[in-house]
């Protein structure tokens, strides 16, 4: 149930801040608005049909492909993009240190997906990691170092908790 007062002018809450969005085309996706209207280019577009996960963001804590979300439908939601993670989170650091990044185009989406996975399931097995991240395509790494990065975070958090 969205509350669209005016589909060309609305406000969005992104990374805890209210943003005024003006003069958009009615059908613009959340991805387009984030990138082209708000200048938040962390979410990437590589397919714009929900297949690659490069545009992944959190919408009220749920992982979504922002290319599939109508921007005007998100006015009552809280959007978190990769820029909103604060930087140098353990997931981000592990991606850098484990070699999970090559060209890096898929990286913001994968970091959002991995962050979300570990919130939902703190100690996933390898199969569960693979299944959870199967919506995020990476063409450079072959995924081995990405699995390694997620497992590194799990191990670090486990040590921190004990």
């Amino acid at each position, binding site marked *: 149930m969205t509350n669209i007062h005016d589909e060309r002018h609305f406000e969005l809450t992104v990374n805890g801040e209210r943003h005024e969005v003006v003069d958009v*085309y009615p059908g613009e996706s959340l991805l387009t608005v984030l*990138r082209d209207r708000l*200048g*938040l*280019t*962390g*979410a*990437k*577009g*590589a*397919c*714009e*049909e929900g*297949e*690659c996960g*490069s545009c992944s963001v959190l919408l009220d804590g749920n992982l979504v492909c922002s290319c599939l979300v109508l921007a005007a439908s998100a006015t009552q939601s809280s959007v978190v*993009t*990769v*820029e909103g*993670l604060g*930087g*140098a989170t353990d997931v*981000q*650091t592990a*991606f*850098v*240190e484990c*070699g999970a*990044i*090559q*060209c*890096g*185009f*898929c*990286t*913001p989406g994968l*970091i959002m997906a991995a962050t979300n996975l570990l919130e939902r399931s703190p100690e996933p097995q390898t*199969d569960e*990691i*693979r*299944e959870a*991240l*199967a*919506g*995020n*395509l*990476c*063409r*450079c*790494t*072959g*995924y*081995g*170092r*990405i*699995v390694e990065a997620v497992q590194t975070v799990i191990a670090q958090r486990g040590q921190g908790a004990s």
Partner: protein
Amino acid sequence: MSDLGIRESSVTGGLGQSPLRPDGIAKSEGAYEFSSDLSADNMLIGKTLRSPHQHARIVSINTAPALAISGVHRIITAEDVPGKPTYGLISSDQPVFAADVVRYIGEPIAAVVADDEEICARAVDAIEVTYEVLPALADARLAKDPNTPSIHPDGNVIREQNVITGDVSVIGDVVVEEHYSIGMQDQAFLGLESALAIPDEDGAGVECHVATQWLHEDLGQVAACLDLPESAVRLVLGGVGGAFGGREDLSLQVHVCLLALATGRPVKMHYSRSESFLGHVHRHPAEIWMRHHATSEGILVKIEAEFVFDGGAYASTSSAVLVNAVTHAQGPYRCEHADVKGIAVRTNNLPCGAMRGFGVVQACFAHERQMDLLAQACGLDPLEIRRRNAMSTGDRLITGQVVESVAPVSEIIEGLSRMPFPQRAGAAEEHPYELPGGAGNTTRPDDVVRGIGYGLSIKNLMYSEAFDDYSTARCQLRDGIVTLKFATAEVGQGFITIAPQIARSTLGLEEVELDVIDTNVGSAGSTSASRQTWMSGGAVEAACLRVRELVYQHVATAEGTDPLVYTIDGTELVNTNTGDRRPMADVVIGLEFDEEVEYRHRPTVPLDENGQGDCHTAFAFVGHRAVVDVDIELGLVRVVEISTVQDVGRALNPLSVTGQIEGGIAQGLGLALMEEIIQRDGRIMNPSFTDYLIPTIADMPPVVAELIEIPDPQAPMGAKGVGEPPTISSTPAVIAAIQDAMNTAYGSAPHLRRVPLQPSDVAKTVNAGLGD
């Protein structure tokens, strides 16, 4: 050639270590600017109108209805190209915009520049083009028939090249032959084509920020089409989201520059995924016939082969792809006699060109399937037939060229034979995720049969056939800081990580900065052909060595001794006469040096008409073993594990090498099992990630990699390129493993001879009754 004396240096972030990517943190935080993230004040958007026909004459183009749309600024066509009307990497045969004839679906006809994307899309739709449709040439085999009308002024044959050596009449005790097909693969880089062009204020030049593999090649081609001197065009590397060969040819570079110059405003163009499938060249589909002759002991005596490559409408790099195929037809095996024929032709299909492993991928699939057939015919196991024929350093190729590179093929085979096998969990414990049907839970554990297969390959490194292949690098030393400048395209592979490593180890200084990657320095050549570690690495090393020499001379003059007494150990300058040590950081205080070097590999020569000549620079070798689980009834495959032993010379950055190996194998697995551009009458039926599938994390198995580090004496720092080999023989290894599973299930099964595999290739064996 190379100074191997300081290689075990203890400098932090030096060679042999795995320091972090300099752009890693920015990429992890979404702060790194890809070319598609760029914008400028007052920026307009450009979009391309493309041909809906495979082959047609353009009768008229009416742009008036599109120009009438509010927000449309300009529309340009072939008439508006001020300079050279065509471009191309090897021959300049591709129009910037089609003028009279279109030769493939997707060929650019016009470009629109407007206030925004939406208006652009409407304007492109509003341009009225009248076509007279012509008969399309879609079959590569027809293209080579002299009776087939030419679709291009340069003719239908792009190149023919044979490789003939020894006695072609020799017949082996054992003869195996088969036809093979390779489908059209897409590079499928995630970062779509995009560029931002900013005109100079006086309109006399333009700066283009673009995701590319070769800035200077783009510069030459773009400037010629714009009719501007190269000095008036500056190309800057925009953040590149992967490349894999797909950015070696121009795509939108000329269009976006023309639009910026025409409007006097910054213009950005970026392709959608579906447009990207039309906007770059692909891996050549190939039809290959091979006949192998061997003694009854399985020793190869002769190879016969015929290659037909469909180059699509324009030449691109078809010529180099063909040469790679015919000169690698033997694989990493000794063979004295050869009769190999190859042709690359034009058709009205999508243009094809460079993709990781170009030409060798196609040849390797065929020769490795043949080696398995030969093993079967000789009653040998797949590793034994390869062991008996393994090439080594000093062997002569079918081109007559002697392999001078380190060629550890036997070591690769032994390495593979030692790898432990993954255990299959009992059916009761097996999670559905681990079965071929995956989370869909479609596979019954009882239908699963495990198979094991092998693939080996040889790949040339760098450019061939007398190409003047060089790279430029500049090393500046000032205030104790080393600054490196080069035009080497960083496309994700990590040259920006190893360049500072080279400088640190060579100079003993830890503070290294990188200048902008642009055309304000000499060419680095292309980021392709596994060449940048060798070529640009060689250039960076050479520039740093010159600066080091100047430091030695300076210190020697001050101390009244000979520069030859100095060496660097870790971060210290050592006087080998006195044993005196001083931190390099102290030694270079106040010193300023600036050296630029062009590095060239040794010259190569063209092939003669029989394909003889030392046409390649150097070679790398690799082997793969695939373990698969096959649902024999449904034809579904899960790759359980891929093991590999790769000849890398020396791993300058082990983590980056691992990344290249795992990433390359993923693309090889993709070609084996799922990746193919399907065309019907020249139209792509699957131009999206919904229908063109690339491996996900759930498709990729663990990779077990062993590196063979025998420094190559000809390679700078001993390091061979590592990017392409993982892609090449992983494909036939996966197919061989599936074949093994089918043979296990049925005793024997039809020979698999096409990639990508279709489930029906496996399942139809059941229907044929072979399973009973």
